[in-house]
């Protein structure tokens, strides 16, 4: 139909104007999109140019020396790994259980709506409010003190929605027919979930977890008061130790360390952003791979 319409209208001036507007709008929207994305490129370029020269194997594997103006970032890197791992241990089982409940069990009632609202709010509450919660609950009330445990639990609560939402989505992407086939064979609900639903949704769940790792490693405000230290001459040895962390390290050398070379914070920022973006890229690649492989 458009095939016959196009030549019919092509000659009218009205149609020519419409097409010019169309072209203009398209160009304008494309330009605005590019402007929005440009900062990512500029920031990365800036960090690589300014911070690149700082980075070396020694930088990544030695502790800071000379009042944190020289040396490397090992304790901060290791500390971030600690925080992320402990946060994952705490949040993944709860998050997956919550997603399984919402996707496989929950009836459409007020409770489910309340849960959904709670998830949205957990994701939307400012990070500094999560920090207040971490101080009030984990540091003071449960007496964990400022420790990896308190900081990681704060991060876990904060990033729980990431796990829940992505897991729920991948569970719901498993076709209902798979489940029905299994139920018809006499399997219980849990057997169906364990043998059929979870294996089929596994890659989606992992994508969510990687995304959570990326979120967790970049956060600063929630760990400032719950577990991160300015400087520690040793690596943490247990969850009740304090730790240095990459994000806070960047804040500290930007605001508090005198005589730090100009390039140093850029180098730390570059490592931090590379970690986070690598995790994100991994999760995106994983998602595309999964989407490509999906047979239903």
């Amino acid at each position, binding site marked *: 139909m*458009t095939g016959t319409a196009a030549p019919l209208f092509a000659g009218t001036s009205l149609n020519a104007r*419409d097409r010019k*507007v*169309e072209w203009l*709008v398209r160009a*304008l*929207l*494309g330009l*605005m*999109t590019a402007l*929005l*994305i440009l*900062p990512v490129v500029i*920031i990365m370029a*800036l960090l690589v140019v300014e911070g690149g020269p700082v980075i070396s194997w020694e930088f990544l594997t030695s502790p800071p020396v000379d009042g944190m103006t020289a040396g490397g970032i090992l304790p901060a890197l290791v500390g971030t790994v600690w925080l992320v791992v402990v946060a994952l241990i705490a949040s993944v*089982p709860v998050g997956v*259980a*919550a997603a*399984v*409940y919402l996707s496989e*069990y929950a009836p459409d009632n007020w409770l489910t709506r*309340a*849960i*959904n*609202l*709670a*998830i949205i*709010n*957990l994701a*939307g*509450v*400012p*990070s*500094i*409010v999560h*920090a*207040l*919660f971490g101080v*009030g609950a984990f540091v*003071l*009330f449960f007496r964990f003190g400022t420790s990896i445990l308190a900081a990681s639990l704060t991060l876990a*609560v904060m990033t*729980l*929605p990431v796990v829940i939402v992505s897991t729920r989505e991948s569970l719901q992407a498993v076709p209902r027919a798979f489940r029905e086939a299994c139920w018809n064979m006499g399997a*219980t*609900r*849990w057997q169906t979930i364990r043998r059929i639903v979870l294996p089929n949704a596994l890659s989606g769940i992992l994508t969510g977890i990687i995304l959570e790792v990326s979120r967790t490693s970049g956060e*600063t405000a929630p760990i*400032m*008061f719950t577990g991160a230290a300015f400087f520690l001459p040793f690596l943490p040895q247990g969850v009740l130790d304090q730790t240095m962390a990459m*994000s806070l390290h*960047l*804040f500290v050398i*930007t*605001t508090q360390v005198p005589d730090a070379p100009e390039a140093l914070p850029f180098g730390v920022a570059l490592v931090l952003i590379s970690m*986070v*973006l690598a*995790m*994100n890229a991994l999760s*995106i690649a994983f998602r595309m791979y999964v989407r490509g492989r999906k047979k239903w």
Partner: protein
Amino acid sequence: MNPQALARSRDFDHRGRAWYVDRAVTVFVFIGGTSAILFIGGIFAFIAREGLGFVFSEFDAGEFFGSIAWRPTSALDATYGALALIVGTASITGLAMVVSIPFSLAAAVFIGEFARGRVRETLKVLVELLAAIPSVVWGFIGFSIMNSLIIDLFDVPIGLNVLNAGIILGLMAAPIMTTIAEDALKAVPDGYREAAEALGATRWQVIRKVVIPAAKNGLVAAVLLGVGRGFGETMVVLMASGHSINLPDSVFDSVRALTATIAAELGETAVGSDHFRALFTLGILLFMVTFAINLAADTIMRGIRRKGERGRP
């Protein structure tokens, strides 16, 4: 007991175990499922535990909402006026939205309606990466780079101001707005577009006259979530806004935000002191405002979902 009955009862036992496991798992995932409610309740309870003590003792609503004198450590007379902090947060968030809304919605329309194939996928990935940049890196950029840039460009006394923090916050809020807005556009049934195209409308006419009106509620929800994002950001407003108690006259004035005040002062405050509890009171305020924003966005989105279901054949 005859062997047959024994076999039957064993069989029953076997089924019984599976049944018990199933029950146990049901309980476990139910607990997991309700944990989100538990946590959000816990957050409010623990903040209120510290903050309400202040609200019921030292708190003076007139001073809190009407005065700019936030002087919790004054040697003469501690005052807790949060007006400048509220205005500061509002002005930064406001500018962030002015920056962010047109660009995000433009990007959503471009990605969702114009871009195709590889361009579209690449743009989506880049938007996602924009969301991944940690806030402390943004703050560092605002403090170290944009300050001198703004001083040089606009010849103003200081570059840590509403403009600096607002632009960065706008960029940070853009990905969530773009993503949600694009989803809202995608949710408009293709039949609408096809019908309009059949009438000879150009693609832009279809978008402007059909798709955007149909997706209006989703776009509003996207904007609300963006507002919530900007409102709660901490590190950027701490490092890039100037952290100065001030009622701004222009975007070149420095301000101080609610979140940044908590971040700057909490660490140095004796647990249980008035100042400590006052900071938790700011937390209650932040919690309630973001809760309201999220509730509004969720209500709008649920409305769309329900309408979508009704509209489905």
